[in-house]
């Protein structure tokens, strides 16, 4: 069974990059176009891992994590934050919200897969 990834990013470019890398690596890929869309899709997709951007319209990445981890959805799946900022404060903030880890943009295929591996154990 393939590991299901829900990617939330408002950039079509990033979504396509993620799709290409993840599908080639054998993941099942789902995507949402902004934070609100991502949270709405969560139950339907029932992903094994979530990858979310931070800067997004409608609901930002921190909001996504808070809602997914919150009472309503109470998600326990790993959540990776996709960010261009490598500053420690950002990581701390994401972690406080309940993020599992982070991927720094621009990412290459290997670092993306490596990050997923560390939180899901999945090779695909």
């Amino acid at each position: 069974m393939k590991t299901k990834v829900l990617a939330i990013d408002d950039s079509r470019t990033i979504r396509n990059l993620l799709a290409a890398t993840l599908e080639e690596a054998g993941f099942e890929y789902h995507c949402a176009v902004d934070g609100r869309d991502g949270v709405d899709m969560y139950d339907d997709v029932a992903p094994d891992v979530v990858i979310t951007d931070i800067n997004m319209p409608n609901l930002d990445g921190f909001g996504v994590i808070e809602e997914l981890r919150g009472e309503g959805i109470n998600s326990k799946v790993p959540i990776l934050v996709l960010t261009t900022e490598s500053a420690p404060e950002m990581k701390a903030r994401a972690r406080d919200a309940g993020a599992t880890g982070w991927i720094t943009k621009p990412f290459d295929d290997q670092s993306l897969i490596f990050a997923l591996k560390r939180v899901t154990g999945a090779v695909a």
Partner: protein
Amino acid sequence: MSGSIQDTFFEECEELLEAMDEGLTAVEGGDHDPEVVNAIFRAVHSIKGGAGAFGLDELVAFAHRFETVFDEVRNNKVELDTKLIQLLLRCSDHLSDLVAVARDGGTTDEEHHDALIAGLEEYMDDEEEDLTFEPMGLGGPSVPLPLAAEEEKTYEIRFRPLKEMFGTGNEPFFLFQALSELGPLKVVLDESELPGFDAMAMDDSYLAWNLTLTSTEPKSSIEAVFEFVEGLCELSIASDKDAEEEEAALAALNAAFGVSGDDSVTDPPAPFDAPAPAVTAPEASPQPVEKASSAKAESTKSEQRGPKPTLRVDLERVDRLINAVGELIINHSMLAQQIANLDVADLRDVETELEGFKNLARDIQEGVMSIRAQPVKPLFQRMARIVREASSATNKVAKLVTEGENTEVDKTVIERLSDPLTHILRNAVDHGIEKPDDREAIGKSRTGEIRLSASHRSGSVCIEIKDDGAGVNRPRVKQIAIEKGLIPENAELSDSEIDNLLFLPGFSTAKEVSNLSGRGVGMDVVKNAVTALGGRINISSNPGKGSTFTIILPLTLAVMDGMVVSVADQTMVVPITSIVETMRGSDDMINSLGADGTLLSIRGNFVPICDVASALGLRNPNSDQPPGVYLLVETETGQKSALAVDDIHDQRQVVIKSLDGVCGNIPGVAAATILGDGKIAMILDPENILAASTSSATFDTERRMSNAIAS
């Protein structure tokens, strides 16, 4: 694959640049809503993110500075004053240039680039200038391996999660699995801290692991595996080689290694004996199989979610479809003709079906056309930049106000409108808008306003460019036209005729040309561009108040509604959009004016008659024409005229076939079409016919008058 993703990136860049421009324009207009600023920030941020993925370093570096300044604005650390807004606007223009360079190659003006960067840096905190974009910390497999064969090292790792770790979704099992890819791994669970069952707190962490890894990887690779749990666990990593280097600790550590080496289980790296609860939890929640099998459908569906589902289609395919629809319409006409020619008693049923066929064909045609239709917004937004550049080049202050940006026009029309609009706007700034001091002196605001608007007007699109500048300098224009021999010296021209002299080929305002609009293109080129699109352009001007250029364009370039008429035994088509009314003439409606002028009286009003056959040179103007049918048309200037044709046959959709490549520009003829009987018919351009006949009449009158004076 990555090529097509890069294409997507550039497509997306266009949209993002558009969004950014829109936001900046709003900000410029005084809208400092945080959400607007946020949206601009996100657009720049997304461009940076995508550019980073493709290694477009120059773009990344510039976007980063741009974004940083916006972040300062967002956090209210920097105030959005006029100076900053102007800088940001220039930066947005430059960013769009950088995107274009990244896509199409070429270079940008380095001096300009550096000046903007320096400008942006003035607003940046010094510490924000860190421009390193290396992916942090993610060493591990992604770091290129050192070339030299690394020595194998044995690492002793002690890992004890804190209870905080479990709330983050991190799982020791997966970390160990990742670790095991670096080399053979031994995992030993240390459960010594586990209290009795009664004393155990559900949410506390009692377990620890001692791991032994043999690997050629450097220590940093191991640290990278634990990156996400840094600070959420107690972690120590020691290697035998470290130990050798540290003389003082040598003995103690050697002893420790000896112990662990002897006592540990000699299992292969995986699977390992891991404690049940923590490790198997994720594995124990298998996903329903149905979900996985419907994955494909589901992922397609997911991509379609979001605010505006769109489909990207190769333009060529749409054009093929449009051609096919054109053929379909011609085919319908032919079929209708064939059926009408049949010798069958009752055709009613067939005709009903044929009517249905026609309606469907029209629906399909409209549908296909709407695919090609696009809002003029991006075009208008680009124009804001033209005005900015023109203003700064001429030391004037002008702003562009746009209206009706959502008006949709055929894609080709939009593409080909860019040059004429650019030219008109440059002209408006250069010749129309006065210098700020001059404006102030005559009681106008220092900032000139140019209003660019688009609207639909009965089957056409109307684009208007209106400035509040000085208007056309008519005495000057007339003088130039006389000097150039374009009009007779004593020509009496109406104001509107003088204004329209600007469009004459050979009319160059050389005396007034500055280095800006004098790029070797005259307004006649603008007119030709518009005419080539099947449109018309007109100027009206109010001295001291400004000028207005009106461009009327057809909605589509492929099909139109036409009235099929006969003119001197030829079948021709007149665009329905230009016809106000049709009427059958009778002798008592015609009044003579002078020797060769005739007027048609309609309900007490007189309108000049223009005989199409003679205007096209198909018939001698003085021949006795039978009173035929009059098509009442209205010109852009609001004047009515009656076009005289011999008869009206039909009203139908015709497919426009351009004559450009076949026989060039024929006065009075806009294009050609194929009729139901397979014959070719010319599509007339009423405006052009009228203009030609009135101007020749005017000059005739002039000549007659001057002749009379001379004799």
